[in-house]
């Protein structure tokens, strides 16, 4: 049982062009920086990326977009990226927009072995078009299917050699559900510790969901909206 790999290059080495990837993070917070950089370097293309956002032009998934490695983006909000907009308007890029909670829950459904769940978001809107609607207790719900993803790539704060993961603050976001949902799950962590060092009461993602893990390097952790207040 050796889940530890040397680095991002080794972790992603069997990701081929055309693969479907889940990528953790919300905005630029908690994104798998090392693996994204390795995917850019490897140059695979025609990727389908499931991620809440699409990064900015020169960071996160934006780096994959710049190299035209993404065929389809499945996201809830993609507003921060000029190259994304260009490719979308030119028809080079396919986009499927999904309500944020539905996106999260479709990942969770996959991790919990539930093929489909009934959710409220989008009832009566164009999101409901083509979807099965069903009424429970007087309310309409949409049938939403679990995602099917070849790989899930997540970023955690700490991890151990068995693949157990702990996330930090709001960098948790989509990472735990995606970690549960990948056929192969790759985790990059800021700090990799030996099995037994994490408090077993306080692990967010049990290692059973994680197939490969490595300690990442040079995290930039770029801030998207730096908002502050003055000391009074």
């Amino acid at each position, binding site marked *: 049982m050796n889940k530890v790999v040397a680095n991002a290059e080794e972790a992603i080495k069997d990701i081929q062009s055309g693969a479907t990837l889940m990528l953790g993070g919300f905005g630029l917070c908690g994104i798998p920086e090392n693996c994204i950089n390795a995917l850019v370097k490897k140059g695979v293309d025609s990727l389908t990326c499931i991620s809440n956002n699409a990064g900015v032009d020169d960071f996160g998934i934006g780096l994959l977009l710049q190299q035209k490695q993404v065929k389809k983006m499945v996201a809830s909000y993609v507003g921060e990226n000029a190259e994304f907009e260009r490719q979308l308007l030119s028809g080079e890029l396919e986009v499927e927009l999904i309500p944020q909670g539905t996106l999260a829950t479709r990942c969770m459904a996959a991790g919990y072995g539930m093929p489909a769940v009934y959710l409220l978001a989008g009832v009566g809107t164009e999101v409901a078009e083509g979807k099965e609607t069903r009424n429970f207790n007087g309310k309409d719900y949409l049938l939403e299917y679990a995602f099917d993803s070849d790989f899930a790539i997540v970023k955690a704060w700490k991890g151990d050699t068995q693949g157990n993961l702990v996330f930090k603050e709001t960098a948790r976001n989509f990472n735990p559900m995606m970690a549960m949902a990948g056929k192969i799950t790759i985790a990059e962590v800021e700090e990799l510790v030996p099995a037994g060092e994490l408090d077993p009461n306080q692990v967010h993602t049990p290692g059973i969901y994680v197939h490969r893990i490595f300690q990442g390097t040079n995290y930039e952790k770029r801030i*998207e909206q730096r908002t502050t207040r003055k*000391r009074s």
Partner: protein
Amino acid sequence: MALNKEQIAHRIARELQDGFYVNLGIGIPTLVANYIPQGVKVVLQSENGLLGMGPFPFEGEENPDLINAGKQTITTVPGSVFFDSAMSFGMIRAGKVDLTVLGAMEVADNGDIANWKIPGKMVKGMGGAMDLVAAAKNIIVAMQHTNPKGESKLLPKCSLPLTGVKCVRKIVSDLGVFDITPDGFRCIEYAPGVTIDEIKAKTAGRLTIADDVKEMVFNA
């Protein structure tokens, strides 16, 4: 005189009750946090995975791992808790959030809301708005009563693609406060100096005026 953004937020803050869990959207709704009445304690939810959001950090103390749903750097308050996005929307869907405040491009007199998409413009996505409006039990919209061309945004029917149906409970616009009722918008307060006639002229949807309609008062 029509309310400014701060006053809209100030008025909405009066809807907060002690113990409420509240989700504040981007824009004017965010400002509501600055006007929480004395003696009222609320917990702010950020749908990316936080209960107990605090104010922006002091300069130099920004933490890239700690942001709100608007991707802004924030802080936490004592008793805060982080969770994943599935649980975050789970608690919204299960009706655990007492109040959601968000902006809108259009609201219809049956409570329909449109705030995510303008045909012909680049569509950036709905983010968490559809989840919030579909599931929150109490939705207040903060908005300008008219668009820059002077056209009403309180309509008989939304012209833009919907975000959610029959979900808005109350609107606080720059002109007044409006409940959504089976008879359409009901004006329960008007902004200082704004006339009922002006409100009638600028409201395209069905409108009634409450018998006890009154002028808003700002002491602060």
